[in-house]
């Protein structure tokens, strides 16, 4: 299996993720876009491991770590979004500019 098409897929997924994070206003959508970016990285890790024949399976181990961290991140992120929504009745990121200097 060639490396090229897989990397293109990962790059596409990552770009979609970046677009989602930067352009969408809904906090839940932004979280979903972050997941897309993380999974694009996972594809990269696994693909390179397979292409380079790494004996210890480092790429896979990394991918599993990333998945674990992503799960934790989604858990916390969703909890935060939910609490903000309860307080503000809004999931629009532009309404959350309380850190303005």
């Amino acid at each position, binding site marked *: 299996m060639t490396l090229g098409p897989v990397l293109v897929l990962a790059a596409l997924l990552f770009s979609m993720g970046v677009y989602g994070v930067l352009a969408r206003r809904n906090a839940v959508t932004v979280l979903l876009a972050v997941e897309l970016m993380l999974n694009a990285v996972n594809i990269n890790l696994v693909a390179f491991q397979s292409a380079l024949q790494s004996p210890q399976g480092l790429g896979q181990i990394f991918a599993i770590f990333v998945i674990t961290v992503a799960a934790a991140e989604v858990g916390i992120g969703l909890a935060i979004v939910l609490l903000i929504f309860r307080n503000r009745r809004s999931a629009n990121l532009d309404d959350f500019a309380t850190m303005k*200097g």
Partner: protein
Amino acid sequence: MTNLFLALASEGEKAVEFGSGGQLQEWAWLILVAPFVAYVLILAYGKKLKYEGGEIAVGMMAFVFGYGLLLWVDTIRNHTVFEKSIEIGRVGNGMVFEWGWVVDGLSSMMYFVVGTVGLLVFTYALGYMKGERRNTFFYASFSLFAGAMLVLVASANLAQLIVGWELVGVASYLLIGHYWEDKANSSAGMKAFFTNKVADVGLIVGALALSVSVGSFRIKDILEVATTNGDSLNAPYFGSTVAVAGALLLFFGAMGKSAQFPLHIWLPDAMAGPTPVSALMHAATMVTAGIYLMARMFPLYQEMATAARPIMIAVGAATLFLTGLIALVQDDIKKVLAYSTVSQLGYMMVAIAAGGYTAALFHLFTHAFFKALLFLGAGSVIHGVHSNNMSDMGGLRKYMPRTFWTFIIGSGALAGIIPLAGFFSKDEILGTLDYEGYTAVLWIAIAGAFVTAFYMTRAVALTFFGSYKGHGHPHESEGLMTVPLMILAGFSVVAGAVNMAGFKFGETIVLRYTGFTEWLATRDFSPLGDHHPEALEWGLALYGTAAAVGGIAIGWMLFSKDAETQEARDRLTIPVLYPILRAKYYLDDVALGLVGVIKGPAARFVDWTNTYIFDTIVNSFGFAAGWLGKVVYNVADQGIIDGIFNGSAGVASVAGGWLRKIQTGKIQQYAGALVIGAVALVVGFVIFNSN
């Protein structure tokens, strides 16, 4: 992790010992640890005790005093030099972090001073602080303050010295801002902390430059390299440039803690703290740190860093004269004493820069006693009158006799009246300046002695003489406060005896005792070029005494009676200048008799000379000094120096105003910036790695 612990355990403690010492020196680390133990105990159990933890603090200081006394006696008798360091970590190539303690002449003198003054001030605080707010926290911080100074004084290496130095800064911040309900007090704490931090940059950079180039934090090693011009150890990076730069940076650090002009601005504001804090800070635990550092590193300044000395002399001379003048125009009695401390620190700095190692430390020693006495006396007055301002005092000698007499002794010692302690130490500084050939500085120092006597007389006159101008009924303080005053007064009388130069009558010299010089020379690298006069120089002693007496006389004339100031001064100049004025009146009669025609104008002329010239001579002394003090205070102190500090704060504020505009608070803009940055990095890598 386990491996790490096992490795540590198997290595055990790595201890290095130098010099000779018995069990006494071996266990000297106890006095460094005691204050910190007391700190924890006070915080844990203080609230339940009668004095809210003060008992623990006083007990701890009594222990420090006793142990310090034993160490000093042992150093005196056996000339012990002892140093022990325990390894706690390593960095880089052989740089070792150590925890150590030194017992030699210099450090045991400091243990003794901290112990004695500390014990008396802590006892006094039991009375002074009764019924105040947050006493438990106060005593805890107070113990921390003393402990930090002991860590500093005991340190065998520069890294530990910095730790002690910074702890002193933290504790002083806590104590100056003790009454933080008032915004001014917490601001004063901040000011002290930040001014010290500016100077600490110098200390840290200087200490690192010296240590890294020598390859050891140990002061012993640095001094060994410095005194052999870098030949003795393998120190390829050490040279005269590093030595001078490091010495100047250390001096900059000392300028902060020891309040040298123009970094003295924090010290007068530090009066916002409770009076016992001021007393301890000014006598033993904080401002002496800079002088101690200079003394500890003295061989460096004598051997390789002589180029640093002119700058130190200039700073010291400016400090001793300019700040003394400022003391003339203060109304707050504690501020008079604060500026006086700054001025006396200028004397010590000048002495040590001129090569007078013993002279500077002798003045530190005597000054510790009489300045603590003066502060505690001022505290007793404030306690009785409930005001800091001398315009609310006056006539207190009738109400507070014990405070009055001890304060008089302290003022006399500070002014340098023979045979009180200050006379001998100040004379030794003058002698050093004379011997080393710094004539201009010598005259500044003598003029400084005049100003010192002047402002102390003014303070005494305004506080204890005249009529009471405050409200309420002043009363003498309780025994817990007056007994420490009396003990300190005793020290202020006799402390000069430890290093009397001796009086020379013809060929015989009487009353000569130079034990102090020998004790201080008991250290690894004996200070070179430290001058000791054969006997008291009558000429210098005369100038010094004349300056002091002149200051007292003029101060007394101007301030001893309280009336409307101008009128009072005019009236009071007459009795003292009576003979001269009388002679002028003969002249007046003669003039009248001889030239009857021009009788009117002549009389008016003589009257005019009388009123304007002779009164003016006396008044101008006072007013010129006062005016100069005002100018220095308003222009240099308030205008320029505060302006520099405020200006830099303003620049930071404006820059902050610009920068806050990019803090929109919108996450997606931040994320966008992040992506742009990441893309730029990738593009950069691709471009620069493509060839």
